[in-house]
């Protein structure tokens, strides 16, 4: 028996003006390329949970339209995709079904929209795959594949039970970065976040030794890997973090993670990050405007941090760790002045990299439900436009056109080579003065 595990890969932008502008902006293209090349960790985990007598193929599909001839040498195909590529995933699923190959589909989007997904696939996985995949495989072998597999208690699967991902399925030269997961969820309850809601509330962490074991496994294939920690918020638990980083240091890797600004308050943690090979932290600053931060999460944690943003970024970058600051435009508190404010903030803070995206109501998130109730969604279904660069709702204090124009303007301002080189030179001058990594 042979199973084809397929991920729809790549980054999508539907807005033609932005897509056209994007290809001329080196920094925008650079991060896009990195994301597009990351392997699908969920499929590598599923592969590890597949019985040994079943052969697995790991396949990335960057563009369904380019797949002229299907590889139909599978007994079962499992597909995963984000919202922006979901119609492409459905097209792939339909083609396999037509060719007589049964299809199982999973991931965040179909967890939100299982009935929709069922129209294209034989079976839909609702929730995290780990607790469900063994049953799916057993049912398939016994010819009783069910239409839906629903995780009974979302958010309770213990990450200590998650198996070693099948990194051996990846072709070494195809990947500049390898993904490793240390946790799921996030303690912040941002209204727009899909990841930390649909797979269950709460924050779950993998034991340090399991993560270290995974990295050692990766090193067997990539001796000096660049690891991207595929978490919503890696350094929530500072005690876990320090223990982890101390054990990571001797492995001599380079790494990238997503976390929140609270790491800046802990000098020891920052030093451990630098010496264990941290090259960049991606931090959701979300906005420069207090009005815009107000209410994006239940406890207004990010609003309370706003006054310290500049100092915190400086503290992190002074420790030799670049910050990729993420901002969202189109928040309810935003006025047309937000674009200039963000541009000025990036210049002043000297963030090495910045990511400005548009507020995106992913299906079934609280944001989606609210905007729908307020009659502000431009369409009820717009999944292929959930790219974080396309506008799908009416902003509160500006028109759709003003939001689009503002986004294009801020892109041109912050992603130009001249501005980036200024920030790059500043950071290079900082790290020149620091000790070698790994020698605290």
């Amino acid at each position, binding site marked *: 028996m042979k199973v084809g595990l397929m991920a729809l890969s790549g980054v999508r932008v539907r807005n033609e003006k932005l897509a056209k502008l994007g290809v001329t902006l080196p920094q925008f293209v650079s991060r896009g390329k990195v994301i597009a090349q990351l392997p699908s960790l969920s499929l590598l985990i599923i592969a590890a949970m597949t019985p040994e007598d079943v052969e697995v193929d790991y396949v990335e599909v960057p563009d369904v339209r380019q797949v002229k001839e299907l590889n139909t040498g599978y007994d079962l195909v499992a597909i995963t995709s984000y919202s922006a590529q979901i119609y492409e995933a459905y097209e792939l699923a339909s083609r396999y079904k037509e060719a007589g190959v049964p299809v199982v589909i999973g991931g965040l989007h179909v967890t939100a929209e299982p009935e929709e997904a069922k129209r294209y696939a034989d079976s839909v996985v609702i929730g995290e795959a780990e607790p469900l995949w063994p049953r799916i495989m057993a049912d398939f072998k016994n010819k009783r594949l069910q239409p839906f597999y629903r995780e009974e208690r979302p958010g309770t699967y213990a990450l200590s039970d998650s198996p070693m991902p099948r990194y051996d399925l990846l072709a070494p030269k195809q990947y500049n970065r390898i993904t490793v997961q240390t946790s799921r969820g996030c303690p912040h309850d941002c209204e727009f976040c899909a990841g930390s809601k649909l797979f269950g509330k709460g924050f779950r962490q993998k034991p340090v030794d399991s993560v270290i074991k995974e990295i050692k496994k990766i090193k067997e294939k990539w001796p000096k890997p660049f690891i991207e920690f595929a978490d919503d918020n890696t350094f929530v638990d500072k005690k876990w973090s320090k223990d982890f980083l101390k054990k990571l240091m001797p492995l001599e890797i*380079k790494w*990238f993670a997503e976390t929140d600004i609270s790491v800046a308050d802990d000098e020891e943690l920052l030093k451990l990050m630098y010496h264990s090979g941290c090259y960049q932290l991606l931090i959701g600053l979300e906005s420069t405007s207090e009005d815009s931060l107000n209410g994006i999460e239940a406890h207004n944690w990010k609003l309370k941090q706003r006054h310290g943003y500049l100092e915190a970024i400086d503290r992190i970058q002074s420790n030799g760790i670049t910050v990729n600051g993420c901002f969202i435009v189109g928040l309810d508190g935003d006025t047309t002045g937000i674009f200039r404010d963000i541009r000025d903030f990036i210049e002043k803070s000297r963030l090495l990299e910045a990511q400005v995206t548009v507020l995106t109501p992913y299906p079934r998130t609280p944001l989606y439900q609210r905007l729908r109730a307020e009659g502000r969604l431009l369409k009820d279904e717009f999944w292929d436009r959930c790219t974080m660069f396309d506008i799908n709702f009416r902003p509160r204090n500006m028109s759709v056109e003003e939001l689009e124009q503002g986004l294009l303007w801020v892109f041109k301002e912050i992603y130009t080579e001249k501005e980036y*080189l200024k920030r790059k030179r500043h950071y*290079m001058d900082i790290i020149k003065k620091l000790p070698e990594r790994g020698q605290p």
Partner: protein
Amino acid sequence: MKQLEQEIINTISEEAAVDKGEINLDANLYDLGIDSLSSLEIVVALEKKYDIRISENSLKKINTIREIIRVVAGEVEKKKKE
């Protein structure tokens, strides 16, 4: 010049974990597995090694290993004349 070129290639190979034999001087850095963050660290390592400082304008030109060699060699020459 040949010796300097070899030293620079050694540093790049070590920093970016790329086999020396696989280094194509004219290949785009990204295609060699060297993204913008890694290339930044490579240039800093070379600046430290030769006690030079590469200007923003010269950083702009660095997209291949041959360009790194040219820019670094130029700065090293400049420093010798100082």
